[in-house]
């Protein structure tokens, strides 16, 4: 049982990392490639072939698939707070790559999110429901 829960925990961490990174960088590249405005309906389609936007879309598809994979064994009440670490990474990526300033209030929010993620990810098991009872 302990090896089973250790296996599930390791798998959960790997998958959650993919979920978070694909979301953060998917949105980052989408934002990077997006023009200032999309004047015609055709431009909504054409923008998908812009290289940065295309990379962003590919990463967001990976995000969707990895999140569904994670939910195939992990609790929703575990996945929700743990993947919220993405909000922190978005702020940090904005600071590093877009030279955005992080005001004190935002740092306070980052500390609260990290504390919440640490409580749930370190303090509770990824799965509390019985997989056999799910059917």
């Amino acid at each position, binding site marked *: 049982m302990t090896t089973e829960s250790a296996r599930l925990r390791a798998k959960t961490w790997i998958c959650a990392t993919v979920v978070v990174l694909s979301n953060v960088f998917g949105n980052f590249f989408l934002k990077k490639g997006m023009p200032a405005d999309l004047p015609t309906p055709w431009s909504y389609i054409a923008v998908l072939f812009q290289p940065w936007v295309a990379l962003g879309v590919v990463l967001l598809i990976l995000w969707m698939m990895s*999140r*569904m*994979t994670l*939910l*195939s*064994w992990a*609790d*929703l*009440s*575990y*996945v*929700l*707070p743990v993947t*919220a670490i993405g*909000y*922190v990474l978005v*702020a940090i990526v904005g600071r590093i790559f877009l030279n955005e300033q992080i005001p004190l*209030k*935002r740092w*306070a*929010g*980052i*500390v*609260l*999110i*990290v*504390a*919440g*993620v640490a*409580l*749930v990810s370190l*303090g*509770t098991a990824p799965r*509390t*429901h019985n*997989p056999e009872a*799910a*059917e």
Partner: protein
Amino acid sequence: MKWIFIAIIVAATTVGEVMQAVGMRRHGEIKDFRPGAIGRAVAALSRSRFVIGSVIAMAVSFFAYLGLLTIADLSFAVPATAITYVLETILAKYLLKEQVNWLRWAGAGLVICGVALVSL
């Protein structure tokens, strides 16, 4: 008008993500990550009523979100939609029968406050 968009976003996101969780749980733990097995899993999931329903709900949520962003700032939109964390955690406990102990409630509460602070 913006509160109508927020109501649609919150309702559609909550319904969509809970349905996605139900659909994935019914499918069972994904253990095989070879391309053929992933293809079979995608084929099986695309026939799941819960997964189809979740995709429709998330599409509604996405377009309502785009609509909201045309009349409201991102710094208003993100914290206003963080309420979905509360609703989904409640549904996870009562509908999905997950054991939401005090650590998870505290964690969800900290994340909501943090998201509000980061985006306000």
